[in-house]
């Protein structure tokens, strides 16, 4: 049987899928990524460290916050700049906004229709009007956080090396704080719906990885923890998973110890579930999934549980932020510090940083010189880590579908469901 899907809707970016199955054996299963190469790592070279984070933000319209912040953190690492506690809190808050708006989009608008037979989300909205409102409210809540702190919800403006160009208004922050309870209620009802869905039974053994932090469910900071329980610092791990370009393609795949691996919400849950906030823990308990989970479809459910966690976390962070006096440094104070650090660079300086993006760990590497220019750069996105594993999953999943004699249309639907469960972002993957 030959399966060919020209265009997979409801993912970020463009891809198709081809598979050939002969006598129950999958001869090939391949994602055909139809994205062009924007050469981000190339075009950033020789450009100023003051502008590159604004450029990398444009890699993705769904997760620009995490691209901006990870880029800034890597530059700060190279410059040996420590940021203030309030800067960390505000960035963590922005990250909660980022995860919430991305997950809400993926859960309700990309994934949910796969569990029913809707081709059009407008029909889905008619079936679940209240849950649609929940999803939109959470998206809005997340976007508001980013907008109030970052100046704009897409491609935030204020984050800069060392902190912020402008501090958020406390009045606006407290207005967001007032909405936390409603956002939490929305997250809970949405998660309840996702816990009640019937997930495909597909368990396989596959390595996974995510950040791990001593004190919190890691998004902003941490070491890399893998399923074989090894912990690596970011530089080590970025070296281990080295990317490999596919022949004739603008896509790069990454492997961990020669094996494809998975990152994202389910990997984070596998590693860090004990650090979830209380309501999210309750939701996990009633969802009855056994961790570590090796079913990739549970990535959807893991995102739903993270929704609750992130609203609770945002509430906690807002409480802390509202007690700070939020003065921030002036532009000239920022500049002086950066110039002093640049002067101290002999030859070049390197910085590697990572954060948990909605779709998994995002790595940035910069090598900069004392003139404040980028010499070398590498970005490894979650999707370029996930793609090899996704393709392997499809290879292992297809025979299970074809033995049951189900119609080809349904097989195709299940394939797309698995692809969407990974929440791939092909725009990020090619950057």
């Amino acid at each position, binding site marked *: 049987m030959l399966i060919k899907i020209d*265009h997979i*809707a*409801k*993912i970020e970016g*463009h891809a198709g899928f081809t598979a050939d199955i002969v006598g129950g054996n999958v001869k090939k299963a391949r994602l055909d990524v*139809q994205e*062009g*190469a*924007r*050469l*981000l*790592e*190339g*075009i950033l*070279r*020789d*450009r*100023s460290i003051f*502008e590159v984070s*604004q*450029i990398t933000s*444009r890699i993705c*319209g769904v997760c620009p916050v995490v691209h901006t912040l990870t880029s800034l953190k890597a530059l700060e690492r190279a410059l040996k700049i420590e940021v203030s506690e309030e800067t960390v809190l505000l960035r963590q808050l922005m990250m909660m906004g980022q995860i919430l708006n991305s997950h809400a989009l993926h859960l309700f*608008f*990309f994934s949910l*229709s796969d569990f029913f037979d809707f*081709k*059009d*989300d*407008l029909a889905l909205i008619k079936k679940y009007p209240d849950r649609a409102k929940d999803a939109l409210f959470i998206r809005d809540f997340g976007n508001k956080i980013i907008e109030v702190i970052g*100046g*704009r919800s*897409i*491609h935030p*403006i*204020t984050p800069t090396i060392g902190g912020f*160009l*402008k501090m958020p208004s406390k009045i606006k922050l407290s207005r967001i704080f007032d909405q936390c309870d409603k956002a939490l209620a929305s997250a809970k009802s949405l998660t309840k719906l996702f816990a009640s869905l019937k997930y495909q039974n597909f368990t396989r053994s596959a390595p996974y990885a995510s950040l791990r932090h001593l004190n919190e469910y890691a998004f902003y900071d941490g070491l890399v923890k893998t399923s074989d329980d090894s912990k690596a610092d970011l530089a080590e791990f970025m070296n281990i998973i080295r990317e490999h*370009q596919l*022949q*004739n*393609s*603008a896509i790069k795949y990454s492997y961990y110890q020669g094996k494809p691996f998975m990152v994202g919400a389910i990997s984070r849950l596998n590693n860090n579930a004990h650090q979830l906030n209380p309501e999210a823990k309750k939701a996990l308990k009633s969802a009855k999934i056994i961790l570590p989970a090796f079913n990739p479809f549970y990535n959807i459910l893991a995102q739903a549980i993270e929704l609750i966690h992130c609203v609770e976390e945002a509430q906690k962070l807002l409480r802390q932020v509202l007690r700070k006096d939020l003065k921030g440094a002036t*532009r000239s104070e920022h500049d002086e510090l950066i110039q002093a650090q640049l002067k101290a660079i002999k030859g070049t300086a390197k910085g590697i940083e990572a954060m948990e993006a909605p779709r998994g760990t995002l790595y940035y590497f910069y090598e900069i010189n004392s003139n404040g220019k980028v010499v070398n750069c590498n970005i490894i996105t979650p999707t370029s880590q996930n793609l090899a594993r996704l393709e392997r999953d499809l290879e292992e999943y297809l025979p299970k579908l074809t033995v049951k004699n189900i119609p080809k249309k349904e097989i195709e639907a299940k394939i797309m469901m698995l692809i969407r469960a990974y929440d791939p972002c092909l725009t990020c993957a090619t950057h």
Partner: protein
Amino acid sequence: MAEHVKIGDFAFLEDTPEAPIYDIVFVEGAPITEENIARLKKLRAKSKVLVALGACAALGGIAEIKNYQDKFERMRYVYKNFESINNPDIKPLSYYVKVDWEIPGCPINKEEFLKIAKQLLAGIPPAIAQRPVCYECQIKQNKCLLQEGLPCLGAIMLAGCGAICPSNNYPCDGCRGPMKNTDPDKLNKQLMSQNYTQEEIDLITQRFGLEDKVYPEPPIKM
């Protein structure tokens, strides 16, 4: 608005086959592969109105930065096997097809998008007022970043964003492109008098792919 329009193809919301013709098509992004160019031309042929949506479609966007560099070296830097990867100069949509309207910005301004979409539905030709970002910035009573010595391009860039960048203490870098019939030299001279080199100014205008818009002819470097 969803009640009044039929969505032909929007992969974020639906998974239905593409419509044979369109009244209005919004095209995001700048063509970067052969397929992109072919699809753009096909879309143009089957659409009454084509709107370039966002900075990449209207100006070229960040991917155009490579036009001002050695794009072949940039390709080799990122990919070992580069022979079969398309590497065209990045051009706005208007280079390939007739563009009826542009909704500029990175990101676009959602209010402006909705306003223009409604105008198009009602058959009213949309018009973005030709005012500089400075106009909106002054209404907001922001302190002037250019006067503070920062390389703010607000004086010649098209308003409609609400001067959102300077309002956040970030100098305008022209994501909406220049106003029509602007003379960039005055601002250029001003920036050079503030000790910016032509190279530094060029780096900023390259960012969203507008160096070739500000200077339709190759600039005479001073």
